[in-house]
């Protein structure tokens, strides 16, 4: 069944990407854990964690590509779904600290003791159970997206107006999560995590495990995204992107399609956030910052929107550049990022993957200089050829 789903959409680049992710999920932990530090192929733990973080960003970029690249919804608030997933994971990790916190309260996290709270707020119940926390990491962003999308798409808010309200959504959440009485740690957020599923969160093995989980989650996200975009539903999404009102006149309820892909995308972003938090060790309201969502848009644009593989490449490359810049030339990073966005918009509208595709096409044409057939015929030639065909009939 899954195979049938995928058969149409698994092109060369996507198969390579899936293979790479699965290989990385196995090889990187092995090279980190099994080889001694002196070995030339040893992967240091800080690099494992850094790459794991990039992969969660890549999953966020993939989720964004699903709505922006395939349905034309430019979300400037996708980091909100990412952060919500992160908070769900953070709440689980807080409950795992137990008596090891500064105040040693077996139930209440440190910040609640500090605020003189007497008991756990009801919305923290159940977060000591990992499966429940993971369910919420998917359900909370999914529900927010569903409610937001229900109103926005039904009222036919599109284009730049929709982008602006997604930005407002993430900004509103930023302000809300800053408040101490929200019960999510306010300004400081959630941190000082000790262990996850009983494993020490600082240990090499746990970090390698989290890396593998991120790589596999990204591979799984890619499979789902390929299945969605290769199905007839995917064709309807592209139809909505290119000619929304035409799609309506064909009898499709455009708002239902948008709501479907928007909610799926938000849940994917939530999963990315849940994997991100244990690797960076903190979640705070800063993750809701509008700039984060905009950065995610840049990753997608750089890699190539509407390609699925492109945003993964874009997220990893841009974040690699960011890590390098913020270490070597910290004051220039924002200029470099802005310049990159302008450059891609002007000269690489289809991103890195689009560039590679058109280069491959040109190469193929060079190799077979005269291919007779329809590809070489221009539309006007076709039109010119047609009246005679009709006369012959």
């Amino acid at each position, binding site marked *: 069944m899954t195979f*049938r789903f995928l058969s149409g959409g698994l092109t060369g680049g996507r198969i390579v990407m899936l293979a790479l992710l699965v290989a990385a999920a196995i090889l990187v932990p092995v090279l980190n854990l099994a080889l001694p530090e002196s070995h030339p192929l040893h992967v240091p733990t800080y690099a494992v964690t850094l790459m794991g973080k990039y992969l969660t960003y890549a999953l966020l970029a993939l989720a964004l590509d699903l709505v922006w690249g395939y349905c034309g919804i430019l979300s400037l608030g996708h980091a909100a779904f990412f952060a919500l997933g992160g908070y769900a994971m953070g709440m689980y990790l807080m409950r795992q600290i137990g008596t090891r916190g500064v105040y040693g309260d077996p139930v209440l996290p440190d910040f609640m003791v500090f605020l003189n709270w007497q008991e756990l707020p009801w919305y923290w119940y159940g977060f000591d159970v990992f499966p429940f926390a993971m369910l919420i990491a998917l359900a909370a962003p999914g529900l927010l997206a569903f409610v937001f999308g229900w109103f926005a798409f039904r009222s036919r808010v599109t284009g730049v107006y929709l982008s602006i309200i997604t930005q407002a959504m993430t900004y509103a959440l930023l302000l809300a999560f800053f408040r101490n009485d929200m019960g999510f740690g306010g300004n400081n957020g959630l941190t000082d995590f000790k262990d996850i599923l009983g494993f020490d969160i600082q240990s090499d093995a746990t970090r390698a495990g989290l890396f593998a989980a991120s790589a596999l989650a990204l591979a799984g996200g890619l499979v789902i995204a390929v299945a*969605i975009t290769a*199905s*007839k*539903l995917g*064709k*309807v999404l*592209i*139809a909505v992107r*290119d*000619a929304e*009102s*035409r*799609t*309506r*006149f*064909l*009898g*499709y*309820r*455009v708002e*239902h*399609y948008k709501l*479907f892909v928007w909610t799926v995308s938000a849940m994917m972003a939530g999963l990315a956030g849940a994997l991100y938090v244990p690797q960076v060790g903190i979640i705070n309201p800063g993750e809701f910052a509008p700039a984060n969502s905009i950065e995610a848009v840049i990753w997608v644009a750089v890699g190539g929107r509407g390609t699925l593989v492109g945003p993964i490449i874009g997220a990893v490359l841009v974040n690699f550049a960011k890590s390098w810049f913020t270490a070597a030339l910290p004051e220039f990073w924002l200029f470099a990022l802005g310049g990159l966005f302008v450059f891609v918009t002007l000269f690489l509208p289809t991103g890195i993957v689009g560039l590679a595709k058109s280069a491959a096409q040109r190469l193929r044409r060079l190799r077979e200089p005269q291919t007779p057939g*329809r590809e070489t015929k221009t*539309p*006007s030639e*076709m*039109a010119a050829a*047609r*009246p005679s*065909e*009709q*006369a012959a009939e």
Partner: protein
Amino acid sequence: MAKAENLLYLDGVSVSFDGFKALNNLSFLVGRNEMRAIIGPNGAGKTTMMDVITGKTRPDEGTLRFDGRIDLTAHDEAEIAGFGIGRKFQKPTVFENQSVRDNLKLALKAPRGPFATLFHRDDEAQRTRIDELLATIRLRDRETDLAGDLSHGQKQWLEIGMLLAQDPELLLIDEPAAGMTDAETAATADLLREIARTHSVVVVEHDMTFVRALGVKVTVLHEGSVLAEGSLDHVSSDQKVIDVYLGR
């Protein structure tokens, strides 16, 4: 269930935009399996009439009924398309980034919900139907090409093919011959006559040769209401019609 004799029934329909009356007390009937041509100068309300029928624009007043029982003013575009009203736009609007075949696949009559399309599977009957349509619109050899690469005339034909794929009872066709060569125009008229044997068709057109080739009853619109109705010869000898439209 007895079927209504008139498939489409418009009575006293008015629409105004910022005080400008685009439709003014328009009344208009289309019978079952009838083809009707609509002519009229620019701004006569031809496109607004199609917008009102297909649910894009709500009328300020008036009655719109489809098949005698459905009140079209109470439904939106997607529902109206589901009742069996298909529309071809003045400017050919196809899905440019998808193949000719996929354009027809999207239009093909089938469940329209997101879960139905997510789990959709092509079957033999649908493939055969698309092959037939490709033959009808003479785009068989271009089925894998992107719709955006077609010539203007071919896009018009693809859009007509998409209309047929929906299998509507009523087809609203806005300027099908625009931008076509004489041979293409003649072939389009043949195709529409063929379609009208089993469907009701409303054609808006400026090209008089084309309207003559259709050989059907003509309605002349002017300032949002019906100025004259009858055969092309009848309306073109009408002095009012000559004054506002043909004579200019």
